[in-house]
């Protein structure tokens, strides 16, 4: 079976890896109800970690569960690994969202 990642809410710009995904791998994107499409992972994403399902600009909101889990600290491209190296909490003092 193809490796999978779950986009929890249709509004999310991230998906959570349901397998260890390798760089360059083509994966199946699923919702809570089932498969919704395919995409390619540009970077390796460990099980339980996130990848971008669209391009995200620096300062833009990172969405998971349909809610803001932080802000992008740099440009993130579709298929990139999303974690502490490119996202910071929106609740931190000085966190600034790009409009």
């Amino acid at each position, binding site marked *: 079976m193809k490796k*999978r990642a*779950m986009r929890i809410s249709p509004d999310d710009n991230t998906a959570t890896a*349901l397998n260890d995904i390798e760089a360059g791998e083509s994966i199946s994107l699923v919702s809570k109800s089932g498969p919704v499409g395919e995409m390619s992972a540009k970077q390796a994403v460990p*099980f*339980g970690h996130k990848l971008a399902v669209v391009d995200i600009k620096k300062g833009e909101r990172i969405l998971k*569960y349909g809610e803001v889990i932080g802000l992008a600290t740099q440009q993130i491209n579709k298929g990139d690994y999303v*974690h502490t190296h490119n996202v910071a909490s929106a609740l931190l003092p000085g966190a600034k969202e790009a409009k």
Partner: protein
Amino acid sequence: MEFLGYERPDGSAGIRNYVVVISSGRCANEMAATIADAVPGAVPVIHTHVCVRFKEDNEKALRVLSGIGSSPNVAAAIVVGVGCENPSPATIAGEIAKSKKPVEVFTIMESNGFQSFMDQGLTTARRMVAEASKMQRKPFPLSHLTLAVKCGGSSAISGIAGNAATGMVLDRLIAEGGTAIFSETTEVIGADHLIVKRAANEEVARKFREMVDRQEATIKASGEDIRGTQPTRGNIAEGLTTIEDKSLGAMAKSGTSPLQGVLEYAEKPKGKGLYFMDGTAMTSELISSEAAAGAHIHIYNIGGGISSSFRCPPGWMGEIPFIPQIAVVSRRSKPYDSQENDFFDIYADTVIEGTESVDEVADRFFNEIIAVASGKLTKREMRKGYREPIVLYTTGPIL
């Protein structure tokens, strides 16, 4: 939709039909357990509350113990004590009597010695069990049910497997007119603004904010700042990026229904729908207060890993004997746990394996809730033996 339950005099419906023997203080634990253990159909409620505590903690103990006795899963209650406890056995029994169910109180101080006290307790327990055994289950709408939830051993996967399915189950019960309670005040810090957004009105939003602020102030007074410590390094290694990410995963178990009210520890909801209760993330302290608030079933979500590998992690030790616990696991971490261990009622790891969607797990889970409400035993209910006293969530010291 309906389940088969026991009709109670206050109009509620129980899903179990036990006689409880409640110890009014730690000094009476052995007596309560001895009486209950001698009578099939009776269960003891033993706990760690002692008389030398601050007023606020005595009041909490009264809410928990009388709330437990008033639970719809209880047919009749016996309160036992030495007689000098605080709250007094008579006060606890008086509160239980408000539910109109049979309640009796026995103390050593008001008996002709210990043996006479025990004989009275046993005779009464047998009579109450005989009465309760005559009751038949009958159909009730699901609007009579209250679910309570708690999670432990969480990871990034809990939020998309077990907790996600639990949230859907809660939404479905609430759509049927039922009630659900979630808690763990420290766990919502970081996602508190999102719960405020779901408040049914401004009053609920204000009360929720106050409750979270109060908890944060208590933590800060001890020199800790929870916002700076979350997520932990372990969480980050598992894929949780920020405190929002972690808190949202935990909150996923509360579903998406509007928040109808905010409860103090062990306070009963005044209406139907979703409620938040002030409480700790420690399981025993939490499930005792959820039982006292009238929860019929306790849903315990385990992320996976080592805490799913043995029979009695803390979440399973502090059980309330008449509240069935539906245990859910999001990930089996081989070789620790396998289906053969069979500790869980709902395996949600099928979401990770790709054999089921979250929707499908929620369907199965909801059916299981109706089955358990109608009498099906949970895995935990099928294990007898070792038990621990219930621990109460207290704020003051033992004096």
